[in-house]
């Protein structure tokens, strides 16, 4: 990956892990400890969330209590907003792991006459820090002072003093700032924060909202220089670092059965590689979903945990359909070995699909994952974007040692290798399903287009869907009619 090469970490630079999914990877360890970091970006870009999650994870994962000084939202509003992300702020406050102080300045009730300073703010911050022994502090967003108070000269010199004071206290701080027209922040906060500046961005492209994070500077540390997509999901922020970070994954040599009679024989008699990606492409009605279900069924039969992403069918429908070809998936879901995650299609976009996938995997810890179909994902976003997101998801799964089977609906008229399939390069094994009309019947055919690292069979075979599941066999000599 591209990194800033200006010097390796000096030993003196200590880092404070944020605990936020992916952020510590792109910052090589976290935010500068004992120093302020500026998080800037437009309205709704996720600044407040990132800042609060920093405190939340700090308290829960690193036993570092935190103070949240809120200039825009009341404590009650923050508690309610974050409850929807599963962050129980009230409990943290009760356990003295978090303190929230809402600072509110109503300009209309304030008259200014003569000299003043912001010692009141310092006193409040100090008192909040001391009350819980805070190691982390968030000021969100201190720029509100500029709209509450009119003497900019005093404000600026007091801000300078505040940032020095934060450093002297040795707290790791996040200061948020609203995006300005010409500057990173409306009031040029970047002038006071020299150590680390992170920019968040929220763009809509092809009607699809995409969030990105970029580290603008990080003094004394190398850091990723790319724009990293990030998602806001049920458990907060997830930042997706570049794939190469994860490619250190092991190469597996163990095999896993396809679960389909006759198919393992085509893969050296042993089936797929574990922790590989298997792509099943084909037109509608060629048996792709049954293929995935059969894989899951055979995995559960051997006691493996399987997660099935059904992007087009409701779980009940899938269970019924598979029962009709002899698979009792319900017994696996009842035993807790199988989870069918049905995500509602496209309107929530690629971002949500991927975040759902990530969180389901983290929660369920499957050994086998089926994504049915990925066309829903690639169709939901601009294709480059979709490809890179899908790539990250697959890398994540492989890195976890999970075997992935994904189905892909070929557009009508385009088949197999003829299709410019961006996903083909992401898969280790590619099986194409098709239909051939023989006389008055349509027959399903199966061809292995590729399978990395093994000598697979080259023949096109018959794929039969029977009352007892799928079966692959050599094409019978047929009488011409």
């Amino acid at each position, binding site marked *: 990956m591209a990194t800033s090469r200006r010097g390796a970490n000096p030993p003196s630079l200590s880092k404070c892990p944020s605990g936020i999914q992916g952020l510590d990877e792109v910052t090589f360890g976290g935010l500068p400890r004992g120093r302020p970091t500026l998080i800037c970006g437009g309205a709704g870009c996720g600044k407040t969330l990132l800042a609060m999650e920093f405190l939340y994870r700090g308290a829960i994962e690193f036993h570092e209590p935190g103070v949240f000084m809120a200039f825009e939202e009341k404590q009650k509003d923050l508690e309610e907003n974050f409850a929807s992300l599963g962050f129980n702020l009230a409990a943290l406050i009760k356990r003295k792991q978090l303190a929230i102080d809402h600072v509110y300045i109503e300009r209309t009730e304030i008259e*200014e*006459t*003569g*000299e*003043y*300073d912001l010692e*009141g703010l310092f*006193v409040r911050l100090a008192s909040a820090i001391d009350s819980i022994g805070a190691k982390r502090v968030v000021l969100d967003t201190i720029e509100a002072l500029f709209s509450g108070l009119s003497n900019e000269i005093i404000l600026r010199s007091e801000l300078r003093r505040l940032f020095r004071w934060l450093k002297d206290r040795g707290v790791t701080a996040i200061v948020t700032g609203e995006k300005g027209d010409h500057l990173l922040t409306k009031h040029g906060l970047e002038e006071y924060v020299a150590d680390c500046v992170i920019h968040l961005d929220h763009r809509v492209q092809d009607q699809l909202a995409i969030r990105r994070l970029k580290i603008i500077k990080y003094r004394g540390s190398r850091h990723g220089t790319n724009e990293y997509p990030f998602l806001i999901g049920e458990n907060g922020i997830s930042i997706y670092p570049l794939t190469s970070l994860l490619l250190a994954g092991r190469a597996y040599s163990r095999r896993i059965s396809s679960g389909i009679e006759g198919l393992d024989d085509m893969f050296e008699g042993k089936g797929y590689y574990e922790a590989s990606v298997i792509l099943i492409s084909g037109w509608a009605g060629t048996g792709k979903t049954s293929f995935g279900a059969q894989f899951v069924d055979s995995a559960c039969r051997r006691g493996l945990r399987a997660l099935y992403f059904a992007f087009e069918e409701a779980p009940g429908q899938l269970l019924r359909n598979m029962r009709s070809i002899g698979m009792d998936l319900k017994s696996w879901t009842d035993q807790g070995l199988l989870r069918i995650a049905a995500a509602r299609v496209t309107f929530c976009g690629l971002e949500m699909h991927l975040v759902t996938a990530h969180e389901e995997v983290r929660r369920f810890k499957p050994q086998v994952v089926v994504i049915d179909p990925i066309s829903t994902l690639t169709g939901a976003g601009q294709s480059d974007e979709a490809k890179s997101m899908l790539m990250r998801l697959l890398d994540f799964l492989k890195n976890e040692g999970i075997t992935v089977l994904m189905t892909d609906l070929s557009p009508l008229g385009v088949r197999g290798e003829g299709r410019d399939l961006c996903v083909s390069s992401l898969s280790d094994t590619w099986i194409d399903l098709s239909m051939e009309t023989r006389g008055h019947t349509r027959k399903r055919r199966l061809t292995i287009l590729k399978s990395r690292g093994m000598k697979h069979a080259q023949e096109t075979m018959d794929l039969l869907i029977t009352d007892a599941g799928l079966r692959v066999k050599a094409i019978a000599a047929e009488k011409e009619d």
Partner: protein
Amino acid sequence: MRPAEFRLVLYVAGATPKSIEAFANLKKICEEYLKGKYAIEVVDLLKNPTLAKGDQIVAIPTLVRKLPAPLKKIIGDLSNTEKVLVGLNIIGKGAR
């Protein structure tokens, strides 16, 4: 003695020159315009830091008019008598 019509709280943080000046200015103004009708309480936030939250104190010194309602705040050393009088609603804007 009947309760004061004007209940004023002056927030300071230690005996800084600005705070001392603010108190002196306030005392003078009150004696001149509100004689017998006022009460001043001085809160030192260095001694009682938790009190800053309740009245939303950010700047020091801050004078808070608790009574009569509505709540009013004047920040600074109170060196401009007219602004203080306007801020406390003792005289209307532009009365002088």
